[in-house]
Each structure stands twice: as C-alpha cells, then as structure tokens.
C-alpha cells in the first residue's frame, strides 16, 4: 500500500506568541509536527507495520520544516518530500494545489493528514486536496481499519460514533483520539538521516506560481486582549442573580 501523509511544521503548542511589527516572531521558537498531523503519521506507520507498504511524508514550507519531516522519518516513515519554494507558499487554496500537484506524480492508495493545523486552524487543506484529486474524503476520524481496498473509519458525531466505509483511494483527516503517537526511537533517529528527502520547486512539479496565488490576504494580526481579573458575586442568592443579570446587560452587554 502506498500511503501519503501531508504534514505541516507548526509552533510548539507551549510557545508564547510574540507579535513584532505585525508579524509573528519566530525567534527562539521550538517547532513541532502539527499535533493532528502527528496522529496521521502514526496511523500511516501503524498500517505499514501491520500490512506492509510505503509511507511518504510531504510538507510545503520553509527549509526549517525539514526537521519535522526528519522526525516523521525517525518515527518510521520511509521517504520525505519538502516543497520549500517560497513562490509556492500561500493560503489553503495555494497549498492544496501544490500538494495535489505532488500527489499526482505518484499514485497513493491512502492520503492522511491532520484535520487542521493548530496555527491557522482553517481545517480546509485536507478536503480541498481531496477535491483537487477527485477522490472521496472523510474528516476528523478517531478510528481506522484497512481491509483490502476498503477503509472503515470511526468519527465522533455529537457525542455518538459514526462508522463510515469507503474504497481507496481515499483521503482521511485525523482527529485527537485516533492513536497515541510514538516517540521516535534512537535507532529511528539515527536511520532518519539516511532516508531520502526530496526537495521540490515550482518547476519540478510543473506549476506556474502566478496561477495559484493566494485567494485571501492577511490584513492584520494581533493578540487577544489580556484577560481581566474575574468577579465573584457575593450576598444572598437572589441578590446575586439580580446583580448578574444587571452586569450581563450593562457591563458585558451580552443580553
């Protein structure tokens, strides 16, 4: 089975966000594999270990994203592709076009990704990529079984579990709960260096960057306002309720 995992390198979720001149500062920041993508990597490696096959990890991003790909290789992926051509960076529209162009160079039975990236949080790239490739997709999966050319997935729906079957090729996006990603082992880390990592530019995948320019534009970036100290109401219950209603109406202006 040929499995493709799309992953993005994102800020470590514990990093403090600092904005300098309207840009998010990357100084001294630790980067990680986007946590949802990490579930996808783990799932792909598990399938490979159980049923055989090959796992390719793919990222569109700056050259620092190599370390995220190497981590996936250390976990057990077989090869990596990094599209680090800046002319191909953009929004979800652009990125899914680029991913599609790379995915089309080969034929994959299964494409996995996180359901969203923790930085932009748009949850669009997976479904868009499936559209570009004209294959079905199921998002936010929490369980996966592969049988022959069929997949059976579980996903949470309003507290219930939905079970869906589909035939490959198919694109699935991972939700928390799908699995517990492994730590890359020492031998895995040592081997990762020797695994192939291909770097691609617009020319390599036959894309004219002008034709896939971003459809959206970031106008401004700012941090949420500082949290104010909370207020604890005191006194008789009746008075508290009255005061609360009054505060909600006049101060918070939500009713």
């Amino acid at each position, binding site marked *: 089975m040929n499995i493709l995992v799309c992953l993005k390198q994102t800020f470590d979720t514990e990093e403090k966000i600092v904005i300098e001149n309207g840009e998010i500062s990357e100084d001294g920041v630790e980067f990680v594999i986007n946590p949802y993508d990490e579930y996808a990597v783990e799932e792909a490696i598990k399938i490979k270990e159980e049923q055989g096959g090959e796992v390719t990890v793919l990222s569109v991003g700056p050259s620092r994203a190599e*370390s995220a790909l190497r981590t996936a290789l*250390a976990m057990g992926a077989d090869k990596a592709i990094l599209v680090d051509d800046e002319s191909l960076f953009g929004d979800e529209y652009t990125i899914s076009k680029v991913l599609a162009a790379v995915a089309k160079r080969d034929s994959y039975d299964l494409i996995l990704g996180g359901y969203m990236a923790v930085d932009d949080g748009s949850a669009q790239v997976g479904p868009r990529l499936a559209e570009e490739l004209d294959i079905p997709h199921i998002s936010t999966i929490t369980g996966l079984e592969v049988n022959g050319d069929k997949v059976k997935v579980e996903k949470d729906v309003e507290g219930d579990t939905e079970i869906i079957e589909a035939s490959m090729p198919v694109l699935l996006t991972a939700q928390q709960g799908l699995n517990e990603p492994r730590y890359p*082992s*020492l031998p895995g*880390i*040592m081997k990762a*260096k020797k695994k192939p990592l291909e770097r691609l530019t617009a020319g390599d995948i036959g894309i004219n960057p002008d034709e896939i320019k971003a459809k959206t534009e970031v106008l401004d970036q700012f941090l949420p306002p500082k949290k104010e100290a909370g207020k604890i109401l005191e006194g008789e219950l009746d008075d508290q309720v009255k005061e609360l209603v009054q505060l909600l109406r006049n101060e918070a202006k939500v009713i």
Partner: protein
Amino acid sequence: MNFELTQEQDMIRKMVREFAEAEIAPKAAERDRTGEFPQDVFHKMGELGLMGIPFPEEYGGSGGDTVSYAIAVEEVSRACGGTGLSYAAHISLGCSPFYYFGTEEQKKKYLIPLAQGKSMGAFGLTEPNAGSDAGGTQTTAVEDGDEWVLNGTKIFITNAAYAEVVVVTAVTDKSRGSRGISSFIVPTSSPGFKIGTIYDKLGLNASNTAEIIMEDVRIPKENILGKLNEGYKQFLITLDGGRISIAAMAVGIARAAYEASLQYAKERRQFGQSISKFQAIQFKLADMATHIELARNMTLKAAWLKDQGKPFKKEAAMAKLFASEMATRVCDQAVQIHGGYGYMKEYPVERHYRDIKLCEIGEGTSEVQRLVIAREIGAS
C-alpha cells in the same frame, strides 16, 4: 567553531525532553517520597534505545555519541534527579567497562542486554575504607582452580539491587598496591553474593543505592574483565567518562530549579508587585541562567572532545567540578527565591536542593576533581 547541535542531536534532545516531561516528571515527587525505583521508566527508555546511546548497534546500543548521551542525561535529570543518577550510572559505570575493556565474548554476553535496557548496570568500587582513595581497596579475589573467589564489601553502589551482574574491583596482588587491583564480572545470583543495606539518603530517592556483601563468591576464571591487575587504570578511565554524565546531571537538576524559580518569581507578589520586579531576585535568576549556560557548554565540550578521540580528562573534571558546584548554588538560591514555600515539599525546589548535593560527591568529590585538574595543569 560551531555551537549548533547536529540534526540528530537536536532530535534526540527533543524526544528525550518530551519523553521525560510526559513519562518521568509527573511521578518524580512521589518517587522521592516512596523511594520507588522507576523500573517501568527504564523499560520504556530501553525500547527507545536510550539505555545504550553511546554504544554501537552490534553491542545493543544506538550508535549515538557522547554529546547525545549528555543531552539525554540532562533532560532525564531535569525531570527527576534520582532517575537521572541511575541512568547515568547505568551507562557510564555499568555498561562502559564492558565496552572499553571487555573481550568480544564479554561484550556480546553482558553489554548487549545492558545496552538494550533489559537489566540495570552497576559498578562497585567504593568500600568502607576506600572512597576517594580507591587504591585502598580491601576486597580480595583469589584464584582457586578454574575460579576466582571474592570476599569483601562494597558500599554506596548505584543500581546494585536491580542489577543482574555487577563489575567490582578487588585486590589480586597486594604487593603491587594500586597496580594489583583487577575488575571482575559478578552475577548477582552467585551464592555468597548479598545485597546488604539499601541506604536511606538525603535525596535522589528514586535511585537505588545499596551495599554489596561478598562471602566466598565463586566466579569462573573468564569473568575477569580485561587484563589482570589493570583494574585501577580501568576505573580511572571509566570515571573520566562518568564525570561528563554527572556534570550533565547537575545541569539538568539546576535547570529544573531555575525554571521553577523563574516561573515562581513572576507569579509571587509581595509589596504590590511580582518579586521578579525586585533587582535582588532578578540578579539571582541572571546568575543562575549564566552558570547553567556555562556549565552546559563545558559539559558538551568535554563530551565533544571524547567523541573526537581527543584527551578529555581535564575538561571532564572541570565540567563536573563547575557544574556540580554551580548547581548546588542554583538549588540553594532557588529555595531562597521561593522563601518559606521553597522549604516545603509541596514545591519541587525542596527536592532539587536535596538531590543536587550528590553531584559534588559521586564519581570523585570536588576536592578530588581539583586534584585531577591540578595534576593535569602541572601544578602538583
């Protein structure tokens, strides 16, 4: 000159940090209280290839370098000092002698399971009357037919109660003084081999420290490690490497104390502001950060020298001396920054304060490090 970690070293740092934060740190305070040995942790570390980082794959290791090993010890010790000590002793004292001095057969038989983390390594040098002066060893080994017969007591031996084999030093030729000491591979299941006291310590309670009593312990002839009468030379070499790991351990514990203090100083308010607004507290934190950075640089330099096959005795002693002394100061100041809360077990710096002291004692006291350095610089 290049101060960057390689991509692998950086990945190892990240992996061990994540592992240590998730799997070791949460129970550190509990282990400190109960003295429970973290066998489950070492089992997982074995699966990740951490228990034999600096040894080649053919001997069960991961083929990593000393720098990676030092980084791992720092991260593990930051999460739990006791786990850090047992880990460092396992590799530096338990595994290394086999790797450096063992025959091919001994490496296959003993190093492989140790490096894979299947059992813990231990090294018995210290005796009631032979501490800093290890030449004063009184344990004896006498040839009897096809066997060696060992008698004597070893004290303060890390991991001893969890080891399947220990390497111990014993006098084989009294007339030759320190040149009459040899090392032996002793299965802990041998008749006459007993674990005596399990010590009740100031800190590092997660680490096992035990007494070994040997009464007519018989081991086969081939269980001598390396050559006859080379034990003294062997443990000097072993300790040189081990000092890098104690330095890394000190850096790890100091970092934990510093990080806790930095956070606490920002949160604790007195006189209407965070105490981190007081210059007196800021200076303490600045000193801590500076000393930790310097100690880590020296530790990694010593590790790097070792990896390059260059002499590193002096640098390892300097790293161990400076790192352990600065770390004791850092932990002391960490308690100070926490005030009365720092004296309470509820706050981790209370544990760090007790844990760190060993780094100035084990694998050669600070005084002994100064002796080594003085000799290396030609002052003695």
